[in-house]
């Protein structure tokens, strides 16, 4: 025995065993059938001291094993700046080591910040209300699809635009397949939703909802004018998956007439960490409040007359409704929502706009420079984009990307045989943009 996470001394063990009337700790498992008992040692490494543990991970992160690249990749995960304060406050153990705030009296810290988070998400998206967060943007979108399906009285499908991130689409399709409703893909044209194809689907009727993305997967800012009305005409639900960081500038889901806004909140202060944990957000109109999945925090009063916050509208949830719940979701990404909340508190109204402006400026500058090399063409000519864009490369794209990696650059994500998608955030300096272009030019030369 004697291990740092186990406080039991031999004396403690004896006294406790005596109180339980057992001779050894193994007697406490006497009710397990013999055939199910595990009697050997686990085939796992032996215990590592803290020094060796640190060394082990340092070796794994050494340059040969894990390479730090200057990141021009996006596709749902972005290398944004977050003030140092965010990470520091996140580590406060009162937040980190607590659980779901069931006991409101000793959980006002968590409940306050979730209420702030809900308010910020509602404000960014323009929606009436938001829940206390979901696992990630993809599952939040799948939950929205199920919400649309569950809300429809007579419907035969949920529509998804082809310009929605294929990874997100795949999750929506997976959920829909097992939940038991069809997903129909509305095709794209020149990188945006094909409106005549959409109108054709709508004319057939039975549409429970439509899911679109903004900016779309290819970085294009789409014009969704008029879509909400045509969806609402058949009592369907309009779902907009939006990057919340860009909503400092872009038209809000509410302004597009969305009933539900969802998306990935990673770009609001959360490190990339190989794609997770991030945080899904989900906001909706007041009308859909009781169909919303997940935890929700509300304001109330305590018996001393103080303003207080509490988990509310719980009759929607699995622990009460069981199989009739709006969703099976039980946890929320509370700590990740805290990243977002602290980040937005620091960046505020102006900071988020500045981030958006810098990212926009950087992306457009990079696109101009790439086009000027004569090696690239716009994949979707004339389409407005935000901080991510696609270009077609006239050459061996894989070899080009390898060359960039050798030089310490992640030059983007390959989204087609010739098509490269690049993202620029405020963390990419003009010098880095310049150097990437140089590497590319020299490779060709």
């Amino acid at each position: 025995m004697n291990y740092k996470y186990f406080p039991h001394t031999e004396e403690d063990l004896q006294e406790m065993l005596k109180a339980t009337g057992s001779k050894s700790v193994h007697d406490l498992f006497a009710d397990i059938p013999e055939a199910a008992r595990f009697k050997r040692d686990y085939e796992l490494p032996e215990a590592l001291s803290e020094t060796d543990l640190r060394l082990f991970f340092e070796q794994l992160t050494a340059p040969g094993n894990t390479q730090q690249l200057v990141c021009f990749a996006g596709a749902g995960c972005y290398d944004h700046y977050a003030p140092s304060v965010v990470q520091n406050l996140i580590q406060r153990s009162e937040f980190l080591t607590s659980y779901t705030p069931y006991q409101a009296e000793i959980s006002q810290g968590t409940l306050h910040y979730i209420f702030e988070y809900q308010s910020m998400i509602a404000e960014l998206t323009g929606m009436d209300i938001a829940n206390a967060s979901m696992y990630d943007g993809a599952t939040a979108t799948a939950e929205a699809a199920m919400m649309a399906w569950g809300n429809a009285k007579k419907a035969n499908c949920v529509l998804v635009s082809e310009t929605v991130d294929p990874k997100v689409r795949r999750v929506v399709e997976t959920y829909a397949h097992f939940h038991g409703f069809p997903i129909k893909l509305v095709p794209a044209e020149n990188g945006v939703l094909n409106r005549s194809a959409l109108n054709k689907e709508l004319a057939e009727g039975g549409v429970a909802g439509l899911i679109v993305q903004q900016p779309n997967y290819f970085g294009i800012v789409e014009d969704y004018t008029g879509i909400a009305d045509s969806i609402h005409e058949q009592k369907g639900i309009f779902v907009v998956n939006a990057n919340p960081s860009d909503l400092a500038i872009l038209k809000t889901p509410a302004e597009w007439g969305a009933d539900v806004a969802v998306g990935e909140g990673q770009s609001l202060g959360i490190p990339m960490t190989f794609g997770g944990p991030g945080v899904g957000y989900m906001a909706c109109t007041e009308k859909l409040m009781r169909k919303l999945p997940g935890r929700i925090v509300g304001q109330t009063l305590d018996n001393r007359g103080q303003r207080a916050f509490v988990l509310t509208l719980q009759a929607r949830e699995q622990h009460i409704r069981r199989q009739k719940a709006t969703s099976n979701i039980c946890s929320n990404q509370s700590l990740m929502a805290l990243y977002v909340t602290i980040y937005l508190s620091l960046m505020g109204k102006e900071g988020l706009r500045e981030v958006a402006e810098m990212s926009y400026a950087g992306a457009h500058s990079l696109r101009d420079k790439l086009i000027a090399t004569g090696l690239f063409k716009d994949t979707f000519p004339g389409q407005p984009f935000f901080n991510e864009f696609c270009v077609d490369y006239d050459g061996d794209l894989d070899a080009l990307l390898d060359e960039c990696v050798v030089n310490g650059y992640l030059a983007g994500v390959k989204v087609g045989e010739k098509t490269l998608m690049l993202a620029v955030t405020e963390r990419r300096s003009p010098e880095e943009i310049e150097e990437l272009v140089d590497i590319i030019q020299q490779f060709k030369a």
Partner: protein
Amino acid sequence: MNRTLYGNLIFELSKKGRKGYSLPQDYDRTHTTAELPETLRRKEAARLPECDELTVVRHYTNLSHNNFGVNDGFYPLGSCTMKYNPVINEEIAGMKAFAGLHPLQPAVTCQGALEVYYNLQESLAELAGLSEFTLNPCAGAHGELTGLMVIRAYHESRKDAARTKVLIPDSAHGTNPASAAVCGLEVVEVKSLADGTVDVEHLRQLLDEMGSDVAAMMMTNPNTLGIFEPHVLEITEMVHKAGGLMYYDGANLNALLGECRPGDMGFDVMHINLHKTFSTPHGGGGPGSGPVGVRKGLEQFLPTPRVKKVIVNYDIPEDGPTEWEGFIIDWGQGDQEKPLGSVGNFFGNFGVMLKAYAYILSLGSENIKQVGPLATLNANYIKERLRDDYLLPIKGLCKHEVVFDGLVDKSTGVTTMDVAKRLLDYGYHAPTIYFPLLFHESLMIEPTENESKETIDAFIDVMHKIAEEAKTDPELVKTAPHNTPIGRVDDVLAAKQPVLTYWKSLENE
């Protein structure tokens, strides 16, 4: 914990013109968002707070002082396994080299990360007695859903898709039936006996009636009462015979570490809550991680992406044949039929996995074996020491948690809710209350292996003291808590007139 309420909201500290960030100013401003057509831009700026840095630091520090975590004190929240979250694991997960990894960077540039990922998959398989794990699911309920998808995909592959019923004991966590419903399955409840274990006769009857419709049975073992299901081997055999698969809800796996593996009991599919059994912090409700494991023969039904170990043979002109052993990501976009699909953005909560793997390496094979026994000893010790004052409905051995049915003396009118609230006054987190539903006054206590005899003795003393107070001064207990930042809240008001944002609260003023 600060026992006075720090009640501010960040919006109330905002003042126009303040800022809490600094960004570089030298960038190419040739393009600005003003280029975007007006129809694509929002009309009014978002009303986000405007605060200086110190204001933000103090605000969230003060909020944290109104919170209670495992580091503050004993947190015996049943079914949640609130174990210690080792600090070294935070250091490792925070390493810059991991934090800066993009999920779509080439596999050759992130072998270290993939090695952790792969080794954790393998370690969990060994600990569970199963063949392979996916780490994609982000939480326990997400794992349940994924596991049920695997089961349906298996039946679909056998052209046996008419199996749409899932058997679930009435004592199960609410997530079980909810996950089944999300997965398009119909829930059929299996009754429990008076001792809280599965009624095998009722199960037999259900299987006789509808065996060919049964996709799976979901089980938690030890069950939600903390009791090991004595007939588990018989149950798994019966369900298998009927053509169904057995799903193991890993919520209570902590009890069994070192003593028993789900795969050895006959389970086919399971999830593990890394935030319970493998010590990753609960973070106020998340992020968790809910890896799903399967027995041999079901691996191909796991969702993509998958991290795999491969050996590649090259033939380099000067050096001759060379072998490269490493890790790759299979995104599932190949030609082969993928029966399941994907369940998340990328490949799960990698930051959480790092902590879990660091925990496994810290403990090593020898110490992991102590986890279940010590947690179980702690729970049985509490059971024996509290049964004089608290009603113990099931007398035998418990595993990692024990359920009481309120106070023995019901004449005082003091309820489980009151006991829970009074515990807060004494500096403890409350146990899980009013679950499981089998008893009216459930009080479910889970002391993890990290809790010392002194901690537990002090808790027992306070529980006895509260039982005494219930007799001598019941009002004191019924009106508790008295010594917390806020008193009991008006839940009815919150639900009847929902105020879910700051903006709504302003409208009401």
